[in-house]
């Protein structure tokens, strides 16, 4: 196939996965939070369950005015949402939905993932500084401090998985979770990494992932009650929608990465490798849904951490634990 045509199709495919994914998670958050805290969720938009609420919200945002404050640095202010959304979208490139259903199976997939996701920090800092507003500025600084602090445990937890799998390619990581560990009565049993000794890594990765997404209990950067909306304060209309979509698309991406690294990704036991290309996406979507539910559950259950508690958790607990985890994984890899 023509290279450019293929490229265009793949890019369209990423958008076709990302947009509905984000909308479904937004709707899920509206309904689940309504049930968890006995508050009234959407009822009417679109009929049953108010399923069209996210679409209606999107339309509402789109027809709002795109304001740029007078004190803002307008070029940087306008660019920031694109950088944030770009960093999130780029992670979708390497998420495998099946043995052959991946946009690009990069040899150093995990490394690429960490590299592109660091762009988000840049966009958030740009948004915070360029708004010309104290709340935005403090929000941007808090966000940067938090993202820097939690990037380390995230990377280190992923390193342990890469060591155990012996590869950086996400397809390779899933494949090594599909290997037979033991056999019971003729059935080959394969275990995901979370059951093969990466339980500490999994907990660290999920915690750090929540902090990277700036979700409660790690939502210091946007803390409405003290910073209005942090670095998002001055944004409106379509640009706010981009941040909003980026946040939920990032949540889906993070859930997909957790599923791929620790929960076996698209792999389902006792299913033929050819059939996995059909069943795989469904399996991955189910795992992503489970992880997203967990994220939402945590958000509506825990209170917000204080800034010093947040930094203490990262530097004093998560990073040392992740380093010990790498050491143990390395020893196990050599000995076993």
């Amino acid at each position: 196939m023509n290279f450019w045509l293929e490229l265009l199709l793949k890019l369209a495919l990423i958008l076709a996965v990302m947009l509905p994914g984000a909308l479904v998670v937004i709707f899920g958050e509206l309904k689940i939070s309504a049930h968890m805290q006995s508050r009234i969720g959407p009822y009417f938009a679109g009929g049953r369950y108010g399923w069209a609420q996210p679409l209606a919200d999107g339309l509402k945002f789109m027809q709002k005015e795109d304001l740029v404050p007078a004190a803002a640095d307008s070029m940087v202010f306008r660019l920031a949402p694109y950088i944030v959304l770009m960093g999130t979208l780029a992670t979708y490139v390497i998420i495998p939905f099946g043995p052959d259903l991946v946009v690009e199976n990069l040899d150093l997939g995990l490394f690429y993932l960490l590299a592109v996701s660091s762009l988000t920090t840049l966009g958030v800092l740009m948004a915070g500084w360029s708004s010309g507003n104290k709340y935005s500025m403090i929000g941007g600084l808090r966000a940067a401090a938090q993202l820097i602090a939690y990037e380390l445990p995230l990377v280190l937890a992923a390193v342990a998985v890469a060591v155990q799998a012996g590869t950086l390619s996400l397809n390779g990581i899933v494949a090594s979770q599909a290997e037979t560990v033991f056999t019971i009565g003729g059935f080959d049993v394969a275990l995901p990494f979370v059951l093969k000794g990466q339980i500490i890594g999994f907990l660290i990765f999920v915690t750090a992932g929540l902090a990277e997404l700036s979700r409660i209990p790690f939502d210091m950067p946007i803390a409405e009650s003290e910073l209005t909306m942090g670095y998002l304060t001055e944004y409106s209309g379509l640009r706010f929608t981009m941040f909003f979509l980026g946040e939920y698309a990032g949540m889906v991406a993070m859930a997909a990465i957790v599923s791929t690294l620790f929960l076996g990704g698209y792999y389902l036991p006792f299913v033929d490798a050819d059939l996995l290309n059909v069943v795989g996406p469904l399996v991955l979507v189910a795992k992503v849904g489970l992880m997203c539910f967990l994220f939402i559950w945590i958000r509506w259950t825990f209170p917000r951490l204080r800034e010093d508690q947040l930094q203490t958790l990262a530097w004093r607990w998560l990073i040392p634990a992740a380093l010990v985890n790498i050491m143990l994984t390395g020893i196990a890899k050599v000995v076993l």
Partner: protein
Amino acid sequence: MSLTDWLSTPENWVFLVIALPMLAAAVKLVTTTNVVHAALYLVVTLAASAAVLLLLGAEFVAWTVVLVSIGAVVVLFLFGIMITRAPMGREATLSHPRSVKLAAAAVSFALFALIGGAAVDAFTSQPLTEPADATRTGALGEVLFTRFVIPFEVVSVLLLAALIGGIVLARRDPGETAGGGL
């Protein structure tokens, strides 16, 4: 090789598309009067250099540039600028005295001549003829941990020393009074 030959190769067009904005961003980086804009132009320059590395098939080095230089170094630059005396909005903050400009230009050209000359001198006999294949990361890791293991360890120890130095400088002992610093 004539110019028309050079232009008939698609890779060279891609190179131009990357390199011209890179040059423009590099010039803006040193001429802008806003220190935050300078850091952002540095991001564009580094991103373009990562793209050039990708074009040469050095995938790992390219993503390292993105992860370390953009994701860590520039973010810390920006963080440092903003946490100290962030000029919010469009305020111009940098001045360029004539003598400084001249000295900077002289140093830059000398450095350019030195590095460019050394690179041309060293590699002119072995040009990349074919569109380069991506270097496998595994092979790179093997070389790093066998042939270059001593430089690798030396750099690790150096970084550790820098880390400890940073902590010693930043730390305030319990007995010290809370003056001076933040």
